[in-house]
């Protein structure tokens, strides 16, 4: 897919990820112990052979810059093409506050123009799946589509109470209606925030939106143009998760504890790459008691860990208990403390004897660097 430009849209700042996105964009939120959310889309793109990737991000982009760095981990260190982080183009004095995704695309039109690729694969930064995008392109060619949108059939029991983009497809897979709704879904088909088209068409749609003062690519650019363009759906049959709230973040993190999902997500079409930190293996001491958990390298475990996900370099001291929890990088849980149904951001220290407990459907979120 050397002829495809990858675009990752990380500009949405209305995510309900609370404290997790206080100091970083959605793309840079840690996930699955050693990854950041963006690693999945980024690795899918490079594993599919995409060589030129632009990430449209927000102005507080330091975590993201630190993480993707030169792009070398994804083999995107390159003279032509490679990885481009595209922060918003505005100045302090020009900021008006109501930019839509279309504005961001428009502001980086020169990047789109300059790139030599003919096609574009655009994805939101907050979707987690392992997908071979070459199959999306194949669908595009077979159907002679103008646009292909990736969707997944979501069973009623998997639904949550957020607004999702549901699709109505005809027998041939063409999309006949689309709507962003909570309750009245058109069908089980839910769009996975990923689309494929010609770059020129994308630029035309963006330009049309700008010309008319429209701001939302999906609602204004796609839904209103369903008659104008042939838009087809490509069904992703495996695991896929959209991280758009603390609830979905916690729930889909815990999904990784199912070995079949763990295997699919990390191995199906190619490995997921991330920034390498050169941590040593996990060290288990004599008193360690770990069960049904994922642990990233650099952890030091002397206490009890159950149904939990531990990031790099987490220390669980003897006599401490971590249960149904996500503990990010370098968290320290000291002797006699219990952490249950909680999400601890990076560098949280729980001093001896503390009890932190949330509910499974309302996990406690502890902000970065808190000392409790």
């Amino acid at each position: 897919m050397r002829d495809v430009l990858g675009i990752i849209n990380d500009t949405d700042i209305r995510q309900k990820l609370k404290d997790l996105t206080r100091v970083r964009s959605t793309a840079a939120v840690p996930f699955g112990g050693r990854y950041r959310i963006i690693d999945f889309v980024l690795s899918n793109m490079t594993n599919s052979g995409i060589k030129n990737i632009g990430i449209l991000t927000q102005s507080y982009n330091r975590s993201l810059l630190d993480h993707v760095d030169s792009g070398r981990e994804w083999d995107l260190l390159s003279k032509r093409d490679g990885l481009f982080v595209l922060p918003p183009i505005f100045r302090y004095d020009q900021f008006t506050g109501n930019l839509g995704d279309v504005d961001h695309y428009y502001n980086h039109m020169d990047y789109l123009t300059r790139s030599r690729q003919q096609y574009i694969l655009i994805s939101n930064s907050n979707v987690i799946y392992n997908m071979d995008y070459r199959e999306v392109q194949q669908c595009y060619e077979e159907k002679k589509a103008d646009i292909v949108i990736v969707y997944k059939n979501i069973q009623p029991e998997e639904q949550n109470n957020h607004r999702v983009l549901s699709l109505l497809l005809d027998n041939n897979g063409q999309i006949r209606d689309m709507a962003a709704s909570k309750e009245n879904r058109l069908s089980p088909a839910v769009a996975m925030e990923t689309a494929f088209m010609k770059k020129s068409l994308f630029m035309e749609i963006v330009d049309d939106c700008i010309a008319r003062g429209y701001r939302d690519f999906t609602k204004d650019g796609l839904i209103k143009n369903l008659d104008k363009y042939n838009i087809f759906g490509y069904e992703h049959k495996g695991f896929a998760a959209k991280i758009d709230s603390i609830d979905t973040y916690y729930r889909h993190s815990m999904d990784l504890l199912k070995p079949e999902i763990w295997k699919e997500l990390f191995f199906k079409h190619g490995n997921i790459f991330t920034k390498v930190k050169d941590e040593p293996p996990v060290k288990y001491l004599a008193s360690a008691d770990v069960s049904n958990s994922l642990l990233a390298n650099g952890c030091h475990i002397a206490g009890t860990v159950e149904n939990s996900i531990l990031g790099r370099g987490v220390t669980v001291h003897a006599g401490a208990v971590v249960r149904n929890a996500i503990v990010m990088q370098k968290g320290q849980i000291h002797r006699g403390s219990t952490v249950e149904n909680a999400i601890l951001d990076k560098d949280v220290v729980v001093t001896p004897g503390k009890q932190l407990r949330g509910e499974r459907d309302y996990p406690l979120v502890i902000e970065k660097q808190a000392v409790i």
Partner: protein
Amino acid sequence: MTKQECVAMLLAGGQGTRLGILTRKLAKPAVPFGGKYRIIDFTLSNCANSGIYTVGVLTQYQPLILNSYIGIGSHWDLDKKRGGVTVLPPYVRHDGGHWYLGTANAVYQNIEFVDQYDPEYVLVLSGDHIYKMDYSILLDYHKEREADVTIAVIEVPWEETHRFGIMNTDKDNVILEFQEKPKEAKNNLASMGVYVFNWKLLRKVLIEDEMNKESDHDFGKNIIPMLLDEKKRIFAYPFRHYWKDVGTIESLWQANMDLLLDQPELDLYERDWKIYSVNPNQPVQFIAKGAHVTHSLINEGCQIYGSVKNSVLFPGVVVGKNSVVNDSVLMSDTVIGENVTIERTIMGEECTVEDNCVIGQPGEGPEGITVLGENVVATQGKVIPSGVEINIENCHEFGCAPNGLKDRKGDL
């Protein structure tokens, strides 16, 4: 080519014959260690952490594997525009070529490589040892003393002095005499095989030594005694931390076990002196419900359903339900089935142990570590006695089979 103050020449050609089947296809520096590393990672990481970014790696035995492992050096932060890491197998000149005849001859054959950087100092290192050392401090020590040569030394137990090159020093650490594997040592300071030379001097001596048909062209045996005779200023640099030559199966196993102590002498978790390695790109490890893991080092990509105690597991190892792994080292992508018992065993990459096997059954064979080379399959219910070495060539004698996968030579 930019001038560099110091160039490191890392000798990585050792065959490591005493490591038996583990070095059948690998030079000793490429042998896996500590659940994540290869032995050479320690020396390469020491170079990068010491700010020595120009490194020649002299390979010989199985050079292609080390060549592809080291690549452009990016994993060790050695992919620099000026300098960087260069793999140097003995190459053929117009007038022919030959294998490196000794450590000194290996550097001699690469004089032109060193000359490119016009260095003041050359650091000669060995890729065979496990240790963390800041070479920039060693270099400062050498400069402060205006030494011609500085040799890093470590105290060894008096009863083991006969296995080492021993330095007799005065109170200022000036080396007065060198005894190679002495029967009666006068001192217990052993050479670590880490030398700083003033390049001009070394260059001259290497050329002289090359002329000498009697010489073994070895730093310890020939170059150092020759310089002592010439009354050069040779200093010992005493090193007081963990240092281990993992030259035998027993010492390799022991060095792995050393890491499992609550406070191991070799701290892999030190943030300011990370040991770099090629990243296998595996997801976080999964410890299942009912698993039991204590006193162990486990790497990414492992899936543990059984019990692991006092063991070191490399990436991608699977331990099945009701299986027990004790006092063992399992290298990458080894798969252990259910109801298996493994005791005091080192297992090479991509071995498979099917259900109900017992590996390293105590009392069944000679004392010692059981070793399975890479790609050996122990089929259903097999019992392997302790102390044997099995590889894909002799495995049929033990009722085992080679793995169906292709021979992974070069596939690091």
